């Protein structure tokens, strides 16, 4: 078998791509420059009520940018589609990867077609499809979500399989037995960079959103009363939040995520406290709303306590550690101690910021008349906080949630980069970058591939947040 080139049989397209990209760049620069000098970018109204840009150099540049962009997208699509259609390896590395990612493409297309058709009925999520930036961001995020979901179908080799001949080999190197390729080359131990990158997404997609969700639970449960009551409670909670925020994150990680700490059981105790928050949150949420109808309230809360409590106990109880009281038979799952500590410390770092945001929004919303109206009809504080204030704070919170998942992803990478928490052979992106950085000047691909993967996910989340912010401000 031969070494694969990047584009294989489609390499004829490469010059076209280069020229299109170059022209696009020139056109964008030209457009920006002319926008300074074009006196009044006159907009003319069409009879149908839409707005059209006018002629002149500026208009020309604008049209050029649009068409070149479309051309560029078409060429890129050509690489991907050809890769799916042509036999494995014929369309080069890009084509082969595209073929491996087929389930992801299908899932993305289905999701987008469905969402786009029903976008008027889907609230804020639907409005996302009015914003190009938001759509691109959402596409990037969902790409990684589906990749993580289908990771077992996508990978070409085992994550830990080592082939000594392929140590530090460039992308597209064939396997010695001729059954395939290391599409993105081999790392310093001869493992497949592509498969590790794909599997690494699973770790991020599993931990980051969940950790962010917990951070939000903690931040909301503390931020609401701090903002609503103010006074001493606020002072104490704000002081604590500032305390954590003043702590350099890396130092905190180095102090928290060490084997010594794990043996003291400290992370588990912290988990005991942190994971209690969602449970309390749900109970308070339901009680405040339904306490006027005691029977309904009792049923709902009993259900939450039993189900949530079971999950909670399963989560915190792990055999052979300091907290182990649940019999094995009913212990639903065990989280490995090193994952737990990573999870806890990420939640710990994130929640003060969420606290501050929630507190700020609460301070703003509590001056509204509908909050006074609730007070004058004798509502209890927690009802006002959870049912009158929180739902109206959802816009900024959703935006921040997306941003924060990105931030959490960065934090997870940081942990991996310093070899903290996760085991060294774990395929997560941070650890892989750490392993690859030593040979960066000779064989950069083992580090570059996960770096770009991480970059695209975080970028997607940021773009998504930007799109959401823009759309939520519109009404």
């Amino acid at each position, binding site marked *: 078998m031969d070494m694969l080139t990047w584009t294989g049989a489609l390499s004829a397209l490469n010059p076209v791509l280069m020229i299109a990209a170059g022209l696009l760049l020139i056109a964008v620069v030209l457009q920006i420059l002319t926008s300074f000098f074009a*006196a*009044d970018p006159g*907009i003319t*109204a069409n009879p149908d*009520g*839409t*707005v059209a840009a006018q002629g002149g150099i500026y208009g020309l540049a604008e049209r050029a940018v649009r068409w070149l962009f479309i051309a560029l997208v078409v060429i890129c699509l050509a690489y991907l589609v050809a890769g799916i259609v042509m036999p494995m390896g014929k369309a080069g590395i890009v084509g082969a990867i595209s073929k491996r990612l087929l389930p992801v493409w299908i899932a993305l297309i289905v999701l987008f077609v469905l969402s786009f058709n029903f976008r008027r009925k889907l609230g804020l999520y639907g409005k996302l499809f*009015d914003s190009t930036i938001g759509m691109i961001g959402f596409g990037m995020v969902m790409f990684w979500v589906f990749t993580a979901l289908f990771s077992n179908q996508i990978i070409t080799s085992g994550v830990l399989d080592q082939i000594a001949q392929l140590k530090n080999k460039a992308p597209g190197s064939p396997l010695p037995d001729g059954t395939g390729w290391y599409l993105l080359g081999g790392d310093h131990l001869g493992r497949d960079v592509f498969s590790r990158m794909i599997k690494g997404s699973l770790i991020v997609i599993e931990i980051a959103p969940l950790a962010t969700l917990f951070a939000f639970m903690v931040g909301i449960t503390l931020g609401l009363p701090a903002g609503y009551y103010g006074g001493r409670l606020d002072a104490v909670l704000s002081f604590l939040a500032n305390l954590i925020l003043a702590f350099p994150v890396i130092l905190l990680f180095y102090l928290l995520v060490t084997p010594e700490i794990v043996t003291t059981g400290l992370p588990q105790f912290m988990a005991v406290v942190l994971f209690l928050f969602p449970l309390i949150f749900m109970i308070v949420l339901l009680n405040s709303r339904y306490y*006027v*109808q005691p029977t309904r309230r009792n049923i709902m809360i009993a259900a939450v306590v039993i189900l949530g409590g079971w999950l909670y106990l399963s989560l915190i109880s792990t055999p052979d550690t300091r907290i182990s009281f649940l019999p094995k038979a009913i212990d639903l799952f065990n989280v490995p101690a090193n994952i737990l500590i990573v999870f806890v410390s990420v939640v710990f770092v994130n929640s003060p910021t969420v606290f501050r945001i929630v507190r700020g929004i609460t301070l703003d919303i509590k001056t*509204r*008349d*509908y909050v*006074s*109206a*609730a*007070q*004058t*009809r*004798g*509502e*209890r504080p927690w009802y006002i906080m959870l*049912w*009158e204030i929180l*739902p*109206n704070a*959802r816009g900024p919170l959703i935006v921040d949630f997306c941003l924060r998942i990105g931030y959490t992803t960065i934090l997870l990478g940081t942990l991996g980069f310093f070899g903290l928490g996760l085991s060294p052979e774990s395929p997560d992106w941070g650890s892989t970058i750490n392993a690859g950085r030593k040979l960066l000047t000779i064989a950069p691909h083992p580090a570059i591939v996960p770096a770009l993967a991480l970059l695209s996910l975080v970028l997607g989340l940021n773009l998504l947040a930007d799109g959401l912010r823009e759309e939520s401000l519109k*009404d």
Partner: protein
Amino acid sequence: MTKWDYDGPILEIDNLSISFFTRLREIPAVMDFSCTVQPGEAMGLVGESGCGKSTVALGVMRDLGKNGRIVGGSIKFKGRDLTTMTEEELREIRGSQIAMIYQEPMASLNPAMKIGQQLMEVPMIHEGVSKAEAYKRALEVVTDVRLPDPERMLKSYPHQLSGGQQQRIVIAMALMTKPALLILDEPTTALDVTVEAAVVDLVKDLGKKYGTSMLFISHNLGLVLETCNRLCVMYSGEAVETGSIKDVFDKMRHPYTQALFRSIPLPGADKNSRPLVAIPGNFPLPHERPPGCNFGPRCDYFEAGRCDAQEITMAPVEGQDRHDTRCLKFTEIDWNAPPEVAAKQEKTAVGEVVLRMEDLRKYYEVSANALFGGGDTKVVKANETLSFEAREGETLAIVGESGCGKSTFAKVLMGLETATAGTIMLYDNEIQSTPIESRNTETVSGVQMVFQNPFDTLNPSMTVGRQIIRALEIFGEGKTDADRRERMLELLDLVKLPRAFADRMPRQLSGGQKQRVGIARAFAGGAKIVVADEPVSALDVSVQAAVTDLLMEIQRKNKTTLLFISHDLSIVRYLSDRVMVMYLGHVVELGTTDQVFAPPYHPYTEALLSAVPIADTRVKKKHIVLEGEIPSAMNPPPGCPFQTRCRWKSKVPGNLCETEVPPVRRLGNGHQVKCHLSDADFASMEPVIEVAAE
């Protein structure tokens, strides 16, 4: 700088059309608008919110933002067409020839620049004068707008000034280069009534002194009457009637103008014998305008097949000075026919006392320096010795400007705060020191509140029905969910909203509709006492009457005691049985409506009455302008709270006013005044408002 000579009209707007463009559609904001402003003339532009009056002003300034465009017509300023000017030419005219004053004075001044710099900038740009010269001019103009200590003013930052002072600075800034045209966009809406009166007075005087023409935009007909020579009434993007003040006020020739006048409480209107006539229906949204006459669907004289068949143009009214109207039928309508009066209501009998306050006080402790915290605390006396009683079925109006303590009083009554001293008796219960958490459901549901801001009064993320049902749940009304739903629908009927609104979200409702939901919610538990905190002040004139009437009707039905907090004396006069005037936490006057609105007055009441603009040419008002600003409640003057602005102070011997809080004087029949003036002085007072005989 070119100030070319031209002796034609200052501003000629011809068939102006302005549209805003969104991704979905074109939204016409102003259509076929024409008007002319002659030199030295003041033109009023009147209409409800969304009628396009501010858009006209911004169109004249050519500052319509990215989405707005002038799609037709011309705007000639001193004979030159503004619509075709380049950005460069416009900049020369802006600020030097045409100046603009806006609604929010605080927002229109740069917070990080000293006042002096902001003023001096104007002549320095337009006339290239030196710094010293510019400073001299700034000093002059600041003196002209009657600000104390001009030199210190120039050195201050905007936030160090009060709202009234800031607005004077904005006016000064506009007058720096003696512009030919001054555009004022609701310049006094954000100010208190007595401050407003002083600013309006100033604008009138300066207009004369500088010979400036004015375009005065307002929703308040009374204010326009006081300031302008001519006016133009706008409705839904079109001018519907234009003419001299006298013609339009007394001989209106458009049904909308007529309806507008009938829906505002003028002297003589009375809730029982001469109720207001509300305009039916709602203001059309820009993309839902009807064919033909925009006012058609709400018009009493509407004739199907005629009024909605064609575009209607302005037609001159014969025999009057430039009086035009956009009505096909204006020659056919009998304009002198009296309005159809709804069945006269019997005056509701006033029952027993339900609420009694005695010597109520509410003090707050605040730290003297809010930002840097700590240190000395100051006592703010938000309410001082408040005593009154309210009876079943009665309407008691509480009148006062900002800082007078009316909101604090409402909070204490509702139980959101507890009183510092004194008693509040609700029937036979003392509730002054029971916070709302410890009150029983009956007390809570018995005292409810209607809030001021319709856009804030409903939770934006809950359906209308759900919010009313929640109130029912809390008040323990209804046994099952079905019961409560039924009761909620009945409440919607009560406030005359369609039942389908139960499933709507608040953002789908107009301001007036939201306010109705707020009323329904307040009455969910069969409230005995309802505190209405300026319930209609944020609503458009045509909606105000309907909401007021609704409140009255429910009150009659339920024999509710209504505590009506307001600063608008016209509406107070219209609907209240008794009036309580407050100033800086003190009740300065209390009596029946007739007693309060007729002499003898408390000096503050007198000034307040004079300050309120009345949209009636027959009314003659005494001209009383209060000097200075309302003192801060943090730092009240010693002695009588009103002594710093009182024009009667010299009549009181010695320095009694400055040293002693006046005692409550009973003038008979429950009329009481807190003042040091002698009986003879009281007797010498003349009525402020006189209606000329018809």
